[in-house]
């Protein structure tokens, strides 16, 4: 059996919160594999986050190189593959973020490995549970390659806690960087503002096509502000240009499982449900009492958003005020 190498994303001097989910999986996998957890940081300047990473694992490998200023699957995948081999890994894993989803299958190809995507659990050393069919089924898959590549669904793994002891850091070479001519051009940011990240928020408020236009989302923003919630949307709302595409929740958007989810003017198509139905408490506000969203909502309010969101915001503000 072998070690578990977990690719962790960083933000300045700290690990990104999504990294704590793959660390949770890595610990469980290392136990099943009788190996050690090794965190891998890759990119220009990632050494800055090494101290933070060392709080979470006995070993941290850092590949810090000026040629890695912008993330590219072409340059990252060979590094992952090489570190996995050098470190005697039997599992290589990452959180299923835009980076994890992009780089891990390419890494698997370089290692000639099988891969389990977006898993909900590791059951035995080589058996994984994952959602398929837009979350309408679960599949248990067994992988027989020497090294197994995995991405984890962030909402299924609670963030790892820091360990009592501090791990050791070592540097590894990036090797020859070949981008196959690919170049990063630019990133056009979405529009989350100062709000919590959709993937980390404990409360999410999502609006759908029934909001009518982008300006009407301002009323949801006010509601979000009273609770420190993140904002999301259905695909119909993002496609119509009401809000940025990176707000989309669902099979092809973000997958979230907050403590509290508000679906406002969202009908509840299976592709949308795929992204939110594991939320602990779901509230639906929709004027159509037959909207499918009511079938999975814990609390449903059959009403127009125009008549409910402002009073709701006021009522919650009142409750919050009484709590301090």
């Amino acid at each position, binding site marked *: 059996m072998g070690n578990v190498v977990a690719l962790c994303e960083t933000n300045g001097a700290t690990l990104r919160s999504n990294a704590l989910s793959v660390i949770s999986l890595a610990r469980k996998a290392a136990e099943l594999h009788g190996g050690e957890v090794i965190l891998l940081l890759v990119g220009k300047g990632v050494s800055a986050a090494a101290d933070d990473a060392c709080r979470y694992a006995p070993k941290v490998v850092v590949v810090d190189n000026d040629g890695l200023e912008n993330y590219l699957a072409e340059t990252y995948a060979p590094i992952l593959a090489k570190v996995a081999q050098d470190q005697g890994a039997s599992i290589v894993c990452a959180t299923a973020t835009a980076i994890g989803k992009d780089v891990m299958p390419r890494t698997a*190809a370089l290692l000639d490995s099988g891969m389990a995507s977006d898993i909900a659990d590791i059951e035995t050393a080589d058996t994984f549970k994952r*959602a398929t069919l837009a979350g309408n089924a679960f599949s*248990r898959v067994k992988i027989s390659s020497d090294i197994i590549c995995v991405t984890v669904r962030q909402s299924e793994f609670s963030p790892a806690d820091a360990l009592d002891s501090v791990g050791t850091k070592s540097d590894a070479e990036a090797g020859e960087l070949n981008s196959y001519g690919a170049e990063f051009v630019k990133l*056009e940011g979405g529009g989350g503002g100062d709000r919590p990240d959709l993937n980390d928020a404990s409360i999410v408020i999502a609006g759908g096509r029934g909001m009518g236009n982008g300006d009407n989302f301002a009323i949801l923003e006010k509601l979000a502000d009273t609770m420190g919630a993140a904002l999301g949307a259905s695909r119909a709302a993002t496609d119509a240009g009401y809000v940025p595409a990176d707000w989309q929740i669902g099979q*092809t958007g973000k997958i979230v499982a907050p403590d509290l989810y508000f679906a406002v003017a969202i009908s509840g198509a299976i592709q949308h449900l795929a992204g939110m139905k594991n939320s602990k408490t779901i509230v639906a506000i929709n004027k159509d009492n037959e909207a499918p969203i009511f079938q999975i909502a814990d609390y449903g309010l059959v009403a127009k958003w125009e008549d409910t969101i402002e009073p709701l915001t006021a009522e919650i503000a009142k409750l919050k005020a009484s709590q301090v």
Partner: protein
Amino acid sequence: MKILVPIKRVPDPELKAKLKDGKLDLGGAQWVVNTFDEYAVEAALRLVENADSGDRDGEVIVVTIGPDDAGVQLRSCLAMGADRAIHVQGDDVELDSLMVAKTLKAVYDAEKPDLILMGKQAVDGDANQCGQMLAGIAELPQATFAATIEVVDEGKALVVGREVDAGVEYKKLPLPALVTVDLRIVSPKSVVNHVTPDDHEYSDGPRYASLKGIMKAKKKPMDQKTMGDLGVTATAVVTELEVTLPEARAAGQIVESVEELVKKLHEDAKVL
């Protein structure tokens, strides 16, 4: 531009999943082209055509690995406007992503297209692996989750707008390259080839096959191949042991007012 579009058939995603002996019961399945693959065909057609004049400069080849019946889905892509098809015989349940990628690599070597354009994931397995694996094996640059594609450098490169967690990332790829598409690739102005006038607006979504298209598709070439013909000897390393259905959520309740909602969220659900 010569474009290879790998496609896969999937059970109609609108129909409810049924189980039999711990596996999906596909006995009565209605098979359709995977949504994202259909979008890739649409994007490929937009890349090679002049939407105003109807002229075309390039070729769109669709390929699938699947049983005999999968020819139906290839024909529907031909009816949309693809030029020819390659059908590699394979049994869905014996394939894994890596095998599919290796098989497609053999097709890539034989066809030498400028671009491989495919869906970002199949809506049945939701794995999102094949494109990236194929790019890795074929040593091609890759752009996954494409929402926009623009042809640049006199047709020698693409700038792809990729949907990432923090917005849209633009990435430039010299050809040959591999691109996987996201949903918004079929928006009215998402593909710009600078042959079709830049201000042209497509209608949203993939094009329907016209009656003429369907008639023409019957005569378009469809190559039959086996994995053996292509020299592929790999076997699957990923096997599905069992499929289960998630537990249904307990039935919820309808509340009558905002006050009642907030009270219940606070006192019963304890989330406020």
